[in-house]
Protein backbone atom coordinates (compact mmCIF):
# COMPACT_ATOMS: atom_id res chain seq x y z
CA UNK A 1 0.00 0.00 0.00
CA UNK A 2 2.77 2.40 0.93
CA UNK A 3 4.39 1.81 -2.40
CA UNK A 4 1.21 2.66 -4.24
CA UNK A 5 0.78 5.85 -2.24
CA UNK A 6 4.28 7.01 -2.89
CA UNK A 7 3.86 6.38 -6.61
CA UNK A 8 0.66 8.40 -6.77
CA UNK A 9 2.32 11.20 -4.82
CA UNK A 10 5.21 11.42 -7.23
CA UNK A 11 3.00 11.14 -10.31
CA UNK A 12 0.91 14.15 -11.21
CA UNK A 13 -2.71 13.52 -12.19
CA UNK A 14 -1.87 13.99 -15.86
CA UNK A 15 1.08 11.59 -15.64
CA UNK A 16 -1.17 8.98 -14.08
CA UNK A 17 -3.67 9.47 -16.93
CA UNK A 18 -0.90 8.75 -19.45
CA UNK A 19 0.36 5.79 -17.43
CA UNK A 20 -3.01 4.06 -16.93
CA UNK A 21 -4.27 5.20 -20.33
CA UNK A 22 -1.38 3.45 -22.05
CA UNK A 23 -2.00 0.26 -20.07
CA UNK A 24 -5.74 0.30 -20.82
CA UNK A 25 -5.41 1.15 -24.51
CA UNK A 26 -2.68 -1.41 -25.20
CA UNK A 27 -4.62 -4.10 -23.29
CA UNK A 28 -7.80 -3.33 -25.22
CA UNK A 29 -5.84 -3.32 -28.51
CA UNK A 30 -4.62 -6.83 -27.65
CA UNK A 31 -8.11 -8.02 -26.67
CA UNK A 32 -9.67 -6.58 -29.84
CA UNK A 33 -7.04 -8.26 -32.02
CA UNK A 34 -7.46 -11.54 -30.17
CA UNK A 35 -11.26 -11.61 -30.69
CA UNK A 36 -11.23 -12.59 -34.41
CA UNK A 37 -8.45 -15.10 -33.69
CA UNK A 38 -10.63 -16.64 -30.98
CA UNK A 39 -13.48 -16.91 -33.50
CA UNK A 40 -11.11 -18.72 -35.87
CA UNK A 41 -10.23 -21.18 -33.12
CA UNK A 42 -13.85 -21.76 -32.08
CA UNK A 43 -15.11 -22.32 -35.62
CA UNK A 44 -11.87 -23.92 -36.81
CA UNK A 45 -11.59 -21.78 -39.92
CA UNK A 46 -8.90 -19.48 -41.22
CA UNK A 47 -9.78 -16.21 -42.93
CA UNK A 48 -10.00 -16.33 -46.71
CA UNK A 49 -6.52 -14.90 -47.32
CA UNK A 50 -7.33 -13.50 -50.76
CA UNK A 51 -10.45 -11.75 -49.42
CA UNK A 52 -8.58 -10.57 -46.34
CA UNK A 53 -5.83 -9.09 -48.51
CA UNK A 54 -8.32 -7.40 -50.81
CA UNK A 55 -10.31 -6.05 -47.88
CA UNK A 56 -7.25 -4.74 -46.02
CA UNK A 57 -5.71 -3.12 -49.11
CA UNK A 58 -9.00 -1.35 -49.83
CA UNK A 59 -9.66 -0.26 -46.23
CA UNK A 60 -6.53 -0.01 -44.09
CA UNK A 61 -4.31 2.55 -45.91
CA UNK A 62 -7.03 5.19 -46.00
CA UNK A 63 -8.14 4.67 -42.39
CA UNK A 64 -4.53 4.52 -41.19
CA UNK A 65 -3.96 7.95 -42.72
CA UNK A 66 -7.25 9.27 -41.35
CA UNK A 67 -6.41 7.77 -37.93
CA UNK A 68 -3.03 9.50 -37.76
CA UNK A 69 -4.51 12.88 -38.70
CA UNK A 70 -7.42 12.39 -36.27
CA UNK A 71 -5.10 11.62 -33.36
CA UNK A 72 -3.22 14.91 -33.81
CA UNK A 73 -6.42 16.90 -34.47
CA UNK A 74 -8.44 15.60 -31.55
CA UNK A 75 -5.86 15.32 -28.73
CA UNK A 76 -5.71 19.08 -28.06
CA UNK A 77 -9.51 19.27 -28.04
CA UNK A 78 -10.30 16.13 -26.03
CA UNK A 79 -7.71 16.54 -23.27
CA UNK A 80 -5.59 13.64 -21.96
CA UNK A 81 -8.22 11.44 -20.27
CA UNK A 82 -10.83 12.14 -22.92
CA UNK A 83 -8.39 11.18 -25.68
CA UNK A 84 -7.65 7.71 -24.30
CA UNK A 85 -11.34 6.97 -23.83
CA UNK A 86 -12.48 8.44 -27.15
CA UNK A 87 -10.00 6.50 -29.26
CA UNK A 88 -11.21 3.26 -27.70
CA UNK A 89 -14.95 3.93 -27.76
CA UNK A 90 -15.20 5.82 -31.08
CA UNK A 91 -17.90 8.12 -32.44
CA UNK A 92 -15.61 11.06 -31.67
CA UNK A 93 -16.77 13.89 -33.91
CA UNK A 94 -20.49 13.05 -33.76
CA UNK A 95 -20.76 12.37 -30.02
CA UNK A 96 -17.75 12.44 -27.66
CA UNK A 97 -16.23 15.75 -28.75
CA UNK A 98 -19.54 17.68 -28.94
CA UNK A 99 -20.39 16.27 -25.50
CA UNK A 100 -17.06 17.41 -24.02
CA UNK A 101 -17.31 20.79 -25.73
CA UNK A 102 -20.76 21.36 -24.29
CA UNK A 103 -19.56 20.32 -20.82
CA UNK A 104 -16.58 22.70 -21.02
CA UNK A 105 -18.87 25.50 -22.17
CA UNK A 106 -21.35 24.90 -19.32
CA UNK A 107 -18.66 24.60 -16.64
CA UNK A 108 -16.65 27.58 -17.89
CA UNK A 109 -13.23 25.89 -17.66
CA UNK A 110 -10.61 26.29 -20.39
CA UNK A 111 -9.96 23.13 -22.41
CA UNK A 112 -6.22 23.32 -21.80
CA UNK A 113 -6.44 23.69 -17.99
CA UNK A 114 -6.31 20.69 -15.66
CA UNK A 115 -9.88 21.44 -14.53
CA UNK A 116 -10.94 21.44 -18.18
CA UNK A 117 -9.23 18.09 -18.67
CA UNK A 118 -11.10 16.68 -15.67
CA UNK A 119 -14.45 18.01 -16.93
CA UNK A 120 -13.97 16.64 -20.45
CA UNK A 121 -12.84 13.27 -19.07
CA UNK A 122 -15.95 13.08 -16.88
CA UNK A 123 -18.29 14.02 -19.72
CA UNK A 124 -16.70 11.61 -22.22
CA UNK A 125 -16.64 8.78 -19.66
CA UNK A 126 -20.33 9.31 -18.82
CA UNK A 127 -21.17 9.56 -22.52
CA UNK A 128 -19.27 6.32 -23.27
CA UNK A 129 -20.97 4.48 -20.41
CA UNK A 130 -24.45 5.69 -21.44
CA UNK A 131 -23.82 4.83 -25.12
CA UNK A 132 -22.57 1.34 -24.24
CA UNK A 133 -25.56 0.71 -21.98
CA UNK A 134 -28.13 1.98 -24.51
CA UNK A 135 -26.60 -0.02 -27.35
CA UNK A 136 -26.38 -3.16 -25.16
CA UNK A 137 -29.98 -2.73 -24.01
CA UNK A 138 -31.06 -2.20 -27.62
CA UNK A 139 -29.25 -5.35 -28.75
CA UNK A 140 -30.84 -7.32 -25.93
CA UNK A 141 -34.31 -6.06 -26.89
CA UNK A 142 -33.64 -6.72 -30.57
CA UNK A 143 -32.76 -10.33 -29.90
CA UNK A 144 -36.02 -10.97 -28.06
CA UNK A 145 -38.48 -8.44 -29.55
CA UNK A 146 -39.21 -6.76 -32.84
CA UNK A 147 -37.41 -3.54 -31.92
CA UNK A 148 -35.34 -3.56 -35.11
CA UNK A 149 -38.43 -3.32 -37.31
CA UNK A 150 -39.73 -0.56 -35.08
CA UNK A 151 -36.51 1.43 -35.44
CA UNK A 152 -36.13 1.14 -39.20
CA UNK A 153 -38.61 2.09 -41.90
CA UNK A 154 -40.32 4.24 -39.30
CA UNK A 155 -41.91 7.32 -40.92
CA UNK A 156 -41.14 9.50 -37.89
CA UNK A 157 -37.86 8.14 -36.53
CA UNK A 158 -36.15 7.76 -39.90
CA UNK A 159 -36.26 11.41 -41.06
CA UNK A 160 -35.61 12.64 -37.49
CA UNK A 161 -32.44 10.58 -37.01
CA UNK A 162 -31.28 11.25 -40.57
CA UNK A 163 -30.88 14.89 -39.46
CA UNK A 164 -29.05 14.22 -36.19
CA UNK A 165 -25.80 15.88 -37.32
CA UNK A 166 -27.41 19.16 -38.53
CA UNK A 167 -29.55 19.23 -35.36
CA UNK A 168 -26.48 18.68 -33.17
CA UNK A 169 -24.13 21.12 -34.87
CA UNK A 170 -26.75 23.87 -35.22
CA UNK A 171 -27.13 24.24 -31.46
CA UNK A 172 -23.51 23.51 -30.61
CA UNK A 173 -22.12 25.73 -33.36
CA UNK A 174 -24.15 28.84 -32.68
CA UNK A 175 -22.67 29.19 -29.18
CA UNK A 176 -19.05 28.80 -30.26
CA UNK A 177 -19.36 30.79 -33.45
CA UNK A 178 -21.04 33.73 -31.71
CA UNK A 179 -18.30 33.75 -29.06
CA UNK A 180 -15.47 33.48 -31.58
CA UNK A 181 -17.05 35.09 -34.63
CA UNK A 182 -13.87 36.85 -35.72
CA UNK A 183 -11.97 33.61 -36.25
CA UNK A 184 -15.08 31.77 -37.50
CA UNK A 185 -16.00 33.87 -40.55
CA UNK A 186 -13.23 32.69 -42.89
CA UNK A 187 -13.47 28.91 -42.22
CA UNK A 188 -17.28 28.93 -42.40
CA UNK A 189 -17.22 30.67 -45.79
CA UNK A 190 -14.50 28.32 -47.06
CA UNK A 191 -16.32 25.17 -45.91
CA UNK A 192 -19.70 26.31 -47.28
CA UNK A 193 -18.16 27.06 -50.67
CA UNK A 194 -16.28 23.74 -50.77
CA UNK A 195 -19.21 21.56 -49.72
CA UNK A 196 -21.67 23.32 -52.03
CA UNK A 197 -19.28 23.34 -55.00
CA UNK A 198 -17.76 19.84 -54.83
CA UNK A 199 -20.25 16.99 -55.31
CA UNK A 200 -19.66 13.98 -53.08
CA UNK A 201 -17.67 15.88 -50.46
CA UNK A 202 -20.38 15.01 -47.91
CA UNK A 203 -18.85 11.55 -47.55
CA UNK A 204 -15.49 13.06 -46.59
CA UNK A 205 -16.45 15.27 -43.67
CA UNK A 206 -14.01 13.38 -41.43
CA UNK A 207 -11.14 14.45 -43.70
CA UNK A 208 -12.42 18.02 -43.92
CA UNK A 209 -12.30 18.47 -40.11
CA UNK A 210 -8.48 18.62 -39.89
CA UNK A 211 -8.29 20.64 -43.12
CA UNK A 212 -10.70 23.18 -41.68
CA UNK A 213 -8.97 23.14 -38.26
CA UNK A 214 -5.57 23.92 -39.81
CA UNK A 215 -7.07 26.67 -41.96
CA UNK A 216 -8.77 28.21 -38.89
CA UNK A 217 -5.55 28.08 -36.86
CA UNK A 218 -3.66 29.89 -39.64
CA UNK A 219 -6.29 32.62 -40.03
CA UNK A 220 -6.58 32.96 -36.24
CA UNK A 221 -2.79 33.34 -35.99
CA UNK A 222 -2.83 36.13 -38.58
CA UNK A 223 -5.67 37.93 -36.76
CA UNK A 224 -3.88 37.42 -33.41
CA UNK A 225 -0.58 38.78 -34.71
CA UNK A 226 -2.34 41.82 -36.13
CA UNK A 227 -3.94 42.40 -32.73
CA UNK A 228 -7.45 42.00 -34.11
CA UNK A 229 -8.58 39.51 -31.46
CA UNK A 230 -9.41 41.79 -28.55
Amino acid sequence: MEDKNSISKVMTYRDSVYFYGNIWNLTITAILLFAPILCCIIYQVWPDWALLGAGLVATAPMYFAVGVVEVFTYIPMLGAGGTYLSFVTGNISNLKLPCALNALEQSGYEASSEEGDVVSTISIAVSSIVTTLIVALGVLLMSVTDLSTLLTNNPVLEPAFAQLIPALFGGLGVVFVSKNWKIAIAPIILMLVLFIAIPGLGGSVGIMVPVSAIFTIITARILYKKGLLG
Partner: protein
Amino acid sequence: MEFSANSPILFIIFGVIILAVLGQSVFFLIRALRRSKQLGMDQKKIKKTMISSAIFTIAPAVSILIGLVALSYSLGLPLPWLRLSVIGSLSYETIAANNVLSAIGEAIGSLKFSELTAQQFVTIFFVMTISIMVGIWLVCIVCKKVQGGILKMENKDKKWTDTFVNAMFIGMISAFWGFVFCDFRVIFTGQTYGLVPVLVMIASALTMALCGLAVKKFKKVSWLADYALPISMIVGMIVAVPLTMWLGAPPVVA
Protein backbone atom coordinates in the same frame (compact mmCIF):
# COMPACT_ATOMS: atom_id res chain seq x y z
CA MET B 1 -18.83 -25.89 -33.63
CA GLU B 2 -21.52 -24.99 -36.14
CA PHE B 3 -21.36 -21.36 -37.16
CA SER B 4 -24.13 -18.81 -36.87
CA ALA B 5 -23.58 -15.05 -36.99
CA ASN B 6 -26.11 -14.83 -34.15
CA SER B 7 -24.58 -17.59 -32.03
CA PRO B 8 -24.87 -17.20 -28.22
CA ILE B 9 -21.14 -17.86 -27.88
CA LEU B 10 -20.44 -14.72 -29.94
CA PHE B 11 -22.76 -12.69 -27.70
CA ILE B 12 -20.83 -13.93 -24.66
CA ILE B 13 -17.32 -13.29 -26.05
CA PHE B 14 -18.19 -9.85 -27.37
CA GLY B 15 -20.11 -9.05 -24.19
CA VAL B 16 -16.96 -9.69 -22.14
CA ILE B 17 -14.90 -7.40 -24.42
CA ILE B 18 -17.53 -4.64 -24.17
CA LEU B 19 -17.42 -5.02 -20.37
CA ALA B 20 -13.65 -4.39 -20.49
CA VAL B 21 -14.23 -1.24 -22.56
CA LEU B 22 -16.91 -0.17 -20.08
CA GLY B 23 -14.41 -0.86 -17.29
CA GLN B 24 -11.99 1.66 -18.77
CA SER B 25 -14.66 4.38 -18.82
CA VAL B 26 -15.62 3.64 -15.21
CA PHE B 27 -11.95 3.64 -14.15
CA PHE B 28 -11.28 7.02 -15.79
CA LEU B 29 -14.54 8.44 -14.47
CA ILE B 30 -13.72 7.51 -10.87
CA ARG B 31 -10.19 8.95 -11.12
CA ALA B 32 -11.44 12.18 -12.71
CA LEU B 33 -14.13 12.58 -10.04
CA ARG B 34 -11.52 12.03 -7.32
CA ARG B 35 -9.24 14.60 -8.96
CA SER B 36 -12.07 17.12 -9.20
CA LYS B 37 -12.43 16.93 -5.40
CA GLN B 38 -8.68 17.33 -4.87
CA LEU B 39 -8.71 20.41 -7.09
CA GLY B 40 -11.58 21.83 -5.04
CA MET B 41 -13.86 22.03 -8.08
CA ASP B 42 -17.53 22.84 -7.49
CA GLN B 43 -19.14 19.40 -7.08
CA LYS B 44 -22.55 20.76 -8.07
CA LYS B 45 -21.06 21.70 -11.43
CA ILE B 46 -19.53 18.22 -11.76
CA LYS B 47 -22.88 16.60 -11.03
CA LYS B 48 -24.53 18.83 -13.64
CA THR B 49 -21.83 17.90 -16.16
CA MET B 50 -22.58 14.21 -15.59
CA ILE B 51 -26.35 14.59 -15.92
CA SER B 52 -26.25 16.82 -18.99
CA SER B 53 -23.65 14.58 -20.69
CA ALA B 54 -25.85 11.54 -20.07
CA ILE B 55 -28.98 13.25 -21.43
CA PHE B 56 -27.12 14.66 -24.43
CA THR B 57 -25.87 11.16 -25.30
CA ILE B 58 -29.31 9.50 -25.58
CA ALA B 59 -30.25 10.63 -29.11
CA PRO B 60 -26.83 9.92 -30.71
CA ALA B 61 -26.76 6.52 -28.96
CA VAL B 62 -30.18 5.62 -30.39
CA SER B 63 -28.87 6.68 -33.79
CA ILE B 64 -25.94 4.23 -33.34
CA LEU B 65 -28.52 1.57 -32.54
CA ILE B 66 -30.35 2.30 -35.80
CA GLY B 67 -27.05 1.88 -37.65
CA LEU B 68 -26.61 -1.42 -35.88
CA VAL B 69 -29.91 -2.67 -37.35
CA ALA B 70 -28.63 -1.87 -40.86
CA LEU B 71 -25.44 -3.87 -40.32
CA SER B 72 -27.18 -6.77 -38.56
CA TYR B 73 -29.08 -7.73 -41.73
CA SER B 74 -25.86 -9.09 -43.22
CA LEU B 75 -23.64 -9.62 -40.16
CA GLY B 76 -26.02 -10.76 -37.41
CA LEU B 77 -26.34 -8.88 -34.11
CA PRO B 78 -23.18 -9.69 -32.09
CA LEU B 79 -20.49 -8.39 -34.49
CA PRO B 80 -22.15 -4.99 -35.16
CA TRP B 81 -22.78 -4.76 -31.41
CA LEU B 82 -19.07 -5.13 -30.66
CA ARG B 83 -17.93 -2.96 -33.56
CA LEU B 84 -20.27 -0.07 -32.75
CA SER B 85 -19.34 -0.20 -29.05
CA VAL B 86 -15.64 0.37 -29.85
CA ILE B 87 -13.72 2.69 -32.18
CA GLY B 88 -15.30 3.02 -35.61
CA SER B 89 -18.63 4.22 -36.88
CA LEU B 90 -21.48 2.97 -39.00
CA SER B 91 -19.92 4.33 -42.19
CA TYR B 92 -16.50 2.85 -41.41
CA GLU B 93 -17.82 -0.62 -40.52
CA THR B 94 -20.02 -0.62 -43.64
CA ILE B 95 -17.10 0.34 -45.89
CA ALA B 96 -14.80 -2.25 -44.27
CA ALA B 97 -17.40 -5.03 -44.61
CA ASN B 98 -18.28 -4.03 -48.17
CA ASN B 99 -14.61 -4.04 -49.17
CA VAL B 100 -14.57 -7.75 -48.30
CA LEU B 101 -18.06 -8.60 -49.56
CA SER B 102 -17.63 -6.81 -52.89
CA ALA B 103 -14.90 -9.32 -53.82
CA ILE B 104 -17.57 -12.05 -53.75
CA GLY B 105 -20.13 -9.86 -55.50
CA GLU B 106 -22.11 -9.10 -52.34
CA ALA B 107 -22.70 -6.04 -50.12
CA ILE B 108 -24.14 -5.10 -46.74
CA GLY B 109 -27.88 -5.29 -47.23
CA SER B 110 -27.79 -7.77 -50.10
CA LEU B 111 -26.33 -10.81 -48.30
CA LYS B 112 -28.45 -12.16 -45.45
CA PHE B 113 -26.61 -13.06 -42.24
CA SER B 114 -27.88 -16.63 -42.36
CA GLU B 115 -26.02 -17.08 -45.67
CA LEU B 116 -22.74 -15.76 -44.24
CA THR B 117 -20.09 -18.46 -43.80
CA ALA B 118 -17.76 -18.68 -40.81
CA GLN B 119 -14.81 -17.93 -43.07
CA GLN B 120 -16.41 -14.79 -44.53
CA PHE B 121 -17.38 -13.73 -41.00
CA VAL B 122 -13.86 -13.96 -39.56
CA THR B 123 -12.41 -12.31 -42.68
CA ILE B 124 -14.73 -9.31 -42.31
CA PHE B 125 -14.03 -9.27 -38.56
CA PHE B 126 -10.24 -9.09 -39.15
CA VAL B 127 -10.55 -6.28 -41.72
CA MET B 128 -12.88 -4.25 -39.45
CA THR B 129 -10.57 -4.72 -36.46
CA ILE B 130 -7.18 -4.11 -38.07
CA SER B 131 -7.99 -1.21 -40.40
CA ILE B 132 -9.05 1.21 -37.64
CA MET B 133 -6.51 0.17 -34.97
CA VAL B 134 -4.05 2.98 -35.57
CA GLY B 135 -5.78 5.54 -33.31
CA ILE B 136 -5.89 3.36 -30.18
CA TRP B 137 -2.15 2.69 -29.99
CA LEU B 138 -0.91 5.88 -31.64
CA VAL B 139 -2.56 7.77 -28.78
CA CYS B 140 -0.28 5.86 -26.39
CA ILE B 141 2.79 7.10 -28.25
CA VAL B 142 1.89 10.72 -28.90
CA CYS B 143 -0.77 11.83 -26.37
CA LYS B 144 1.74 12.95 -23.75
CA LYS B 145 3.91 14.72 -26.34
CA VAL B 146 1.02 16.62 -27.95
CA GLN B 147 -0.45 17.60 -24.57
CA GLY B 148 3.02 18.57 -23.40
CA GLY B 149 3.37 20.78 -26.47
CA ILE B 150 0.10 22.51 -25.66
CA LEU B 151 1.22 23.08 -22.04
CA LYS B 152 4.54 24.50 -23.22
CA MET B 153 2.69 26.80 -25.58
CA GLU B 154 0.43 27.84 -22.72
CA ASN B 155 3.38 28.76 -20.50
CA LYS B 156 4.73 30.90 -23.31
CA ASP B 157 1.52 32.61 -24.40
CA LYS B 158 -1.69 31.68 -22.59
CA LYS B 159 -3.95 33.87 -24.69
CA TRP B 160 -2.73 32.41 -27.97
CA THR B 161 -3.11 28.85 -26.62
CA ASP B 162 -6.75 29.48 -25.74
CA THR B 163 -7.28 30.97 -29.22
CA PHE B 164 -5.47 27.99 -30.77
CA VAL B 165 -7.74 25.43 -29.08
CA ASN B 166 -10.83 27.53 -29.87
CA ALA B 167 -9.68 27.74 -33.50
CA MET B 168 -9.59 23.92 -33.63
CA PHE B 169 -13.13 23.74 -32.22
CA ILE B 170 -14.31 26.35 -34.74
CA GLY B 171 -12.53 24.43 -37.51
CA MET B 172 -14.44 21.29 -36.64
CA ILE B 173 -17.76 23.12 -36.38
CA SER B 174 -17.15 24.88 -39.73
CA ALA B 175 -16.50 21.53 -41.42
CA PHE B 176 -19.81 20.17 -40.13
CA TRP B 177 -21.65 23.37 -41.05
CA GLY B 178 -20.27 22.89 -44.56
CA PHE B 179 -21.36 19.25 -44.47
CA VAL B 180 -24.93 20.39 -43.73
CA PHE B 181 -24.86 22.17 -47.11
CA CYS B 182 -23.51 19.16 -49.04
CA ASP B 183 -26.81 18.52 -50.88
CA PHE B 184 -27.61 22.22 -51.24
CA ARG B 185 -26.74 22.27 -54.95
CA VAL B 186 -29.77 20.10 -55.90
CA ILE B 187 -31.75 23.33 -55.56
CA PHE B 188 -30.28 24.40 -58.88
CA THR B 189 -31.90 21.36 -60.49
CA GLY B 190 -35.28 22.18 -58.98
CA GLN B 191 -35.15 19.68 -56.11
CA THR B 192 -35.63 20.81 -52.53
CA TYR B 193 -34.47 17.96 -50.28
CA GLY B 194 -31.05 19.58 -49.90
CA LEU B 195 -32.67 22.33 -47.85
CA VAL B 196 -33.86 19.98 -45.09
CA PRO B 197 -30.53 19.73 -43.20
CA VAL B 198 -29.96 23.48 -43.59
CA LEU B 199 -33.36 24.34 -42.11
CA VAL B 200 -32.93 21.74 -39.35
CA MET B 201 -29.60 23.33 -38.43
CA ILE B 202 -31.16 26.79 -38.36
CA ALA B 203 -34.06 25.54 -36.19
CA SER B 204 -31.61 23.99 -33.73
CA ALA B 205 -29.42 27.13 -33.69
CA LEU B 206 -32.44 29.36 -33.07
CA THR B 207 -33.63 27.13 -30.21
CA MET B 208 -30.17 27.31 -28.65
CA ALA B 209 -30.12 31.11 -29.01
CA LEU B 210 -33.60 31.37 -27.42
CA CYS B 211 -32.50 29.16 -24.51
CA GLY B 212 -29.47 31.41 -24.05
CA LEU B 213 -31.63 34.56 -24.04
CA ALA B 214 -34.12 33.01 -21.61
CA VAL B 215 -31.34 32.06 -19.19
CA LYS B 216 -29.94 35.60 -19.34
CA LYS B 217 -33.33 37.29 -18.84
CA PHE B 218 -34.98 35.03 -16.29
CA LYS B 219 -32.99 33.74 -13.35
CA LYS B 220 -35.68 31.12 -12.66
CA VAL B 221 -34.81 29.14 -15.77
CA SER B 222 -31.05 29.00 -15.21
CA TRP B 223 -31.37 25.18 -15.21
CA LEU B 224 -32.16 25.48 -18.92
CA ALA B 225 -28.49 26.16 -19.67
CA ASP B 226 -27.57 22.56 -18.81
CA TYR B 227 -30.13 21.07 -21.15
CA ALA B 228 -30.05 23.67 -23.95
CA LEU B 229 -28.02 21.49 -26.33
CA PRO B 230 -30.12 18.31 -26.03
CA ILE B 231 -33.29 20.45 -26.28
CA SER B 232 -32.02 22.19 -29.44
CA MET B 233 -31.01 18.86 -30.93
CA ILE B 234 -34.41 17.29 -30.26
CA VAL B 235 -36.24 20.37 -31.63
CA GLY B 236 -34.12 20.13 -34.80
CA MET B 237 -34.90 16.42 -35.17
CA ILE B 238 -38.63 16.93 -34.59
CA VAL B 239 -38.72 19.76 -37.15
CA ALA B 240 -36.98 17.41 -39.59
CA VAL B 241 -40.07 15.16 -39.79
CA PRO B 242 -42.54 17.67 -41.39
CA LEU B 243 -39.70 19.30 -43.34
CA THR B 244 -38.78 15.95 -44.93
CA MET B 245 -42.45 15.32 -45.79
CA TRP B 246 -42.66 18.78 -47.36
CA LEU B 247 -39.30 19.09 -49.13
CA GLY B 248 -38.59 15.43 -49.79
CA ALA B 249 -35.93 12.94 -48.71
CA PRO B 250 -32.63 12.39 -50.54
CA PRO B 251 -32.70 9.54 -53.06
CA VAL B 252 -31.54 6.24 -51.55
CA VAL B 253 -28.07 5.32 -52.78
CA ALA B 254 -27.83 1.60 -53.40
